[in-house]
């Protein structure tokens, strides 16, 4: 698995966000990452003003790699994904700045038609709620086959055969018999498999999965996640996994970006974040996972609520909820610093947008 490729290679004292983030994959060998998001900004016009949903987000994903984007609802994780896909609701949403480079080309500068052709074919998305994300009045076979008819110009008959093939591939029993069934006739797990099949139909280079297992029963979650990881490995696709569930992340992700109020507050290779978080928000998220070995103790919860995007607090957006906030946190927005060992040794791929990251990771 590629996640093992995260090497401990040393890098020069990179300072910009995207450099920090591209550390891991430059180590992997390929020159240009599959997808680079650079200082992306997304705004929503509302009646009460402009909401800055995404405020300078940068991350990158390489082929075969899995990036988990973690955050509460409203953190901007889904909006970033929709901006990458080009499916923002606009108006009211619009990309206000930044670049999204796919195979090295800025897709934000492409024509609508060019981007449309990328969607579904080169980059695809899996949504959270498969029941509402599949059209209720068309059979699953029709909706799967549509990918081949529209992007490959296949006939109805050929596309149906392809749909059956896909359903087999995502392990839906009796695919041939069920190809004419409608979404509501499938179980939740089977429906999500169909969503996955649809996203993978044309073997895209990049998959964005927005909370793909949140709506599923716990018992089914693991199966669906395993299937997704397996297919990703087979096709060597880049995967952006958007989730609020740290449990899901541990098994499948290579690296993590934690988002809060439209910014990335921490990035790290997946296993390190559990051991040594470098941002108080990440710490809080980890502490609020119920643990069996702490039975009887009161569960930790981050106090307060995520900020209103129309009135993001001055300074660090997390400061009002942060147990360790100082005066500087309320005035100065912390940049995403590279995170190092005490002796100055680089920790590749690690970054923290906390003024006191040193205390957090080493303290």
């Amino acid at each position, binding site marked *: 698995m590629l996640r093992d490729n995260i090497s401990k290679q040393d890098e020069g004292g990179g300072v910009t966000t995207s450099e920090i983030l591209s550390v891991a994959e430059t180590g992997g060998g390929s020159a240009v990452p599959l997808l680079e998001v650079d200082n992306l900004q997304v705004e929503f016009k509302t009646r009460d003003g402009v909401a800055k949903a995404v405020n300078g987000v940068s991350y990158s994903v390489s082929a075969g790699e899995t990036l988990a984007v973690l955050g509460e609802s409203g953190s901007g994780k889904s909006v970033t994904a929709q901006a990458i*896909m080009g*499916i923002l609701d606009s108006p009211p949403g619009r990309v206000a700045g930044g670049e999204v480079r796919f195979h090295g080309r800025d897709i934000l500068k492409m024509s609508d038609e060019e981007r*449309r*052709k*990328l*969607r*579904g*074919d080169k980059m*695809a*998305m899996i*949504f959270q*709620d498969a029941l*509402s*994300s*599949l*059209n*209720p*009045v*068309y*059979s699953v076979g029709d909706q799967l086959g*549509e*990918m081949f008819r*529209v*992007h490959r110009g296949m006939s109805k008959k050929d596309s149906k055969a392809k749909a059956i093939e896909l359903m087999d591939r995502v392990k839906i029993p009796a695919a041939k018999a069920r190809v004419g069934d*409608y979404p*509501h*006739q499938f179980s939740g797990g089977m429906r999500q498999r169909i969503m996955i099949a*649809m996203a993978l139909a044309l073997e895209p280079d990049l998959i964005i999965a927005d909370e793909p297992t949140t709506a599923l029963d716990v018992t089914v979650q693991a199966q669906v996640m395993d299937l997704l990881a397996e297919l990703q490995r087979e096709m060597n696709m880049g995967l952006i996994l958007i989730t609020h569930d740290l449990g899901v992340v541990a098994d499948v992700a290579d690296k993590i970006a934690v988002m809060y109020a439209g910014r990335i507050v921490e990035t790290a290779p997946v296993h390190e974040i559990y051991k040594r978080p470098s941002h108080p928000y990440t710490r809080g998220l980890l502490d609020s996972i119920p643990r069996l070995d702490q039975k009887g103790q009161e569960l930790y919860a981050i106090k307060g609520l995520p900020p209103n995007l129309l009135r993001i607090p001055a300074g660090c957006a997390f400061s009002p909820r942060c147990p360790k906030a100082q005066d500087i946190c309320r005035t100065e927005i912390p940049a995403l610093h590279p995170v190092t060992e005490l002796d100055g040794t680089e920790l590749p791929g690690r970054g923290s947008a906390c003024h006191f990251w040193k205390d957090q990771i080493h303290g």
Partner: protein
Amino acid sequence: MGRYVARRLGQMVIVLIGATMVLFACLFVLPGDPVGSIAGSDKARDPAVVAELKARYGLDKSLPEQYVNYVSKVATGDLGEDFIQRREVSEILGPKLANTAKLALLAIALVTVFGMGVGIIAALYRYSILDMATTFFTTMAVGFPTFVIGMLLMKWFAVELQWFPQLGGDKLEGMVLPAVTLAITDIAFVARLTRGTMLEVLRADYVKTAVAKGLPRRRVLFKHVLRNSSIPVVTYLGISFGALLGGALITEAIFNWDGVGLALVQAIQQQNNPIVIGVVTYSVAIFVVLSLIVDLLYAALDPRIRLS
């Protein structure tokens, strides 16, 4: 699906039996004098004539007998003889039915084209001048009853501009004003409904999926949005068509259109009960049948209904 159709057919029969009983109760059980109008006014009434008339129209039998008699005749299409011309009711109503149907077809065509068209455009260009004009039109239209619309249209387009005849004839131009009169309010309702459901469907997750699949905008709209948002609209259109076919009393009266609605109005003024019974029975039946068709159409359009 088969069981669903069977159940709905059963319900339809029950409703039809119920409706004929209500009608029958109104006309024969409530105080009133069905023979009065033909036998002449009370003082000049000859008991022998009354008895003969009662026998002729079966009014001397017991109520249940009369009801069974009426229903069994109606079921075979026999509506009896009317009181005034002494002709078969079905014979009198036949050509009138055709006239009403012509008007209803033109009206429903106008409603479908303009109502859905305006609604779709308003939804796609939300907050545009056109959308706001649509909202204004649909808000105001509820206040304008058919008789006001009809009279206004007649004043403007028949009396002043003289584009169309004042009273409907057999020609197409005579149909325009009554059809528009019938259509305007429904155009407003359908436009409002279409706009509302379109906006709702446009926000649906599966539309986002369709866009994310890289489908061209036209395909997203015509395949994924329109089919879903047409479901409630088709329902409304079907029911509305049923009501139109049942006879547009006011419009037909204003434009003197020789349909079942006008026939009913005249029959009521002349207390010509067989015609009244005939028109009302027909009108209820057509409405119930249309409701059934709409339900089946609904099931055809929405697999969630069809397959549950």
